[in-house]
């Protein structure tokens, strides 16, 4: 059995230089337990591997039931010089929400 992160959490993406910052916020305690266990740095790096050089760092905020992922080398050299249309990587939250997790 697997489920998409989209079923468990919501997310927002932001930028700083060439680094993308993607939050993952669980809808409830059960979702939080799964995310904390399964949404690892390795899994996130695999999902972003064709876009980002990495590394990926995961921060935990248990009181907010949230994870904060910092994905380096993800924005085509940085917002101001990137050739990408979405230079800020605002759409990258939904790449996170598209990840399949075992449940």
């Amino acid at each position, binding site marked *: 059995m697997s489920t998409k992160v*989209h079923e468990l959490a*919501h*997310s*927002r993406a*932001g*930028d*700083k*230089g*060439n*680094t993308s*910052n993607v*939050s993952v*916020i669980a809808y409830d305690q059960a979702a939080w337990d799964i995310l904390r266990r399964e949404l690892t740095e390795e899994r996130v790096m695999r999902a972003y591997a*064709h*876009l980002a050089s990495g590394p990926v*760092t995961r*921060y935990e*905020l248990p*009181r*907010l039931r*949230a994870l*904060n992922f*910092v994905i380096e080398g993800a924005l*085509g050299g*940085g*917002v*101001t*010089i990137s*050739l*990408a*249309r*979405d230079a800020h990587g*605002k*759409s*990258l939250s*939904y*790449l996170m929400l*598209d990840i399949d997790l075992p449940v």
Partner: protein
Amino acid sequence: MTKTRVRIGAGAGFSDDRFEPALELAERGELDYLVFECLAERTIARETLSRIKDPETGYTPYMRDRLRMVMPACMQAGIRIVTNMGAANPLGAARVIRRDALSLGLPPPVVAAVVGDDVTEIVRAHPELRLLDTGEPVESLLPRMAAANAYLGADIVREALARDAQIVVTGRVADPSMFVGCMLHGLGWSYDDYPRLAAGTFTGHLLECAAQLTGGCFADPGKKDVPDMARIGFPYADVDADGSVRLGKVAGSGGRLDVATCTEQALYEIHDPARYITPDCVLDITEAEFEQLGPDRVGFRGTRAAPRTDTYKVVVGYHDGWIGEGEVGYAGPNAVARARLSEQIVRERLKLRGFSYPEIRVDYIGMSSLHGMGAGRPEPYEVRLRVAARSPDRKAAQAVGFEMRTLNVNGPAGGGGTLEALREVIGVRSLLLPRHLVHPEVVIEERP
């Protein structure tokens, strides 16, 4: 005069934000302060270029429209305005704001310009300073540098307010610091009171992107719905002297303000949540919690802060050549194959003309332009090919869009909707500058 509570509203979250929500706050929000945050990382470098062409400009293009809209209501109600829309020319901005107030028939306001964020010459004198991302000295960027600006802190905003300014216009000030400056002044906080600075900085961080706290960037139909998004109300914060905070928005405005919207904005661009560095403190939100106090009413607790660092962060804007791009669309049978053929043709044309590029990016809009070409993407009914390239040479960059445009008659069958664009690139890099090298200052504009 020190108060026991202040209400601070967010009038804009970026330079091209909607206009009406600020007026709604000014007229119906019962505010003490209205803060407009309008500077992206590269804005000042761009505005520096405008100022070189015309010394009267250099502030953000919408500044006058925004302030002319809210000044009558703000001055009547005694709401003080703080904004970084001064960009590369806070002094010129202050003059223009005062003139505009007079032409609106308002009593002449005291306008304070905050200067000293422009550290271009200081950086030029210290080529040994190291860039934050690569650790290399800034020296190699200096010949191409357009501007260098330090993120100033809340202390200089407080000083401007303490000199009775009704309007404070700045260049680069850290986004949360504009809000914290209002708190320092209005509530009489000490600049070394870190528990209060923590609450204030977190509040500023939550407010600085305006609608992103009240339902903007949030809706996902069926999963996370937001009411009345065409009329989203911008947020305000009620801050008590003891550092407790309640977030709200004007009754009857659109959007939503709850624990979920606040949590998304809390983590927005924060990176390490135990060490969010501003000029005022090092904020730690790892123990922070939100509480729904009522409809569209949220409080928080648990913020902490460590003392501020002994440096200011500086953004260096520099010329980085040109980006040229073009697009063409295809639909129906074999659409993707025809788009791929166009990509080959354009690459070959650019080569034939003798152009080469450090980087060419190809997007299939509808398939790969946002999340890249992941495995197993289905072919869409219609697709747009986009080709973009960077070059130090304007002509080479311009050729990209030109060759895309020529596909109109020279390309594959059924290509439509060509577009081309060319822009000058201002790159930005960061470094840290010791505090003692930076001298923020308040200049009061009182001339008629």
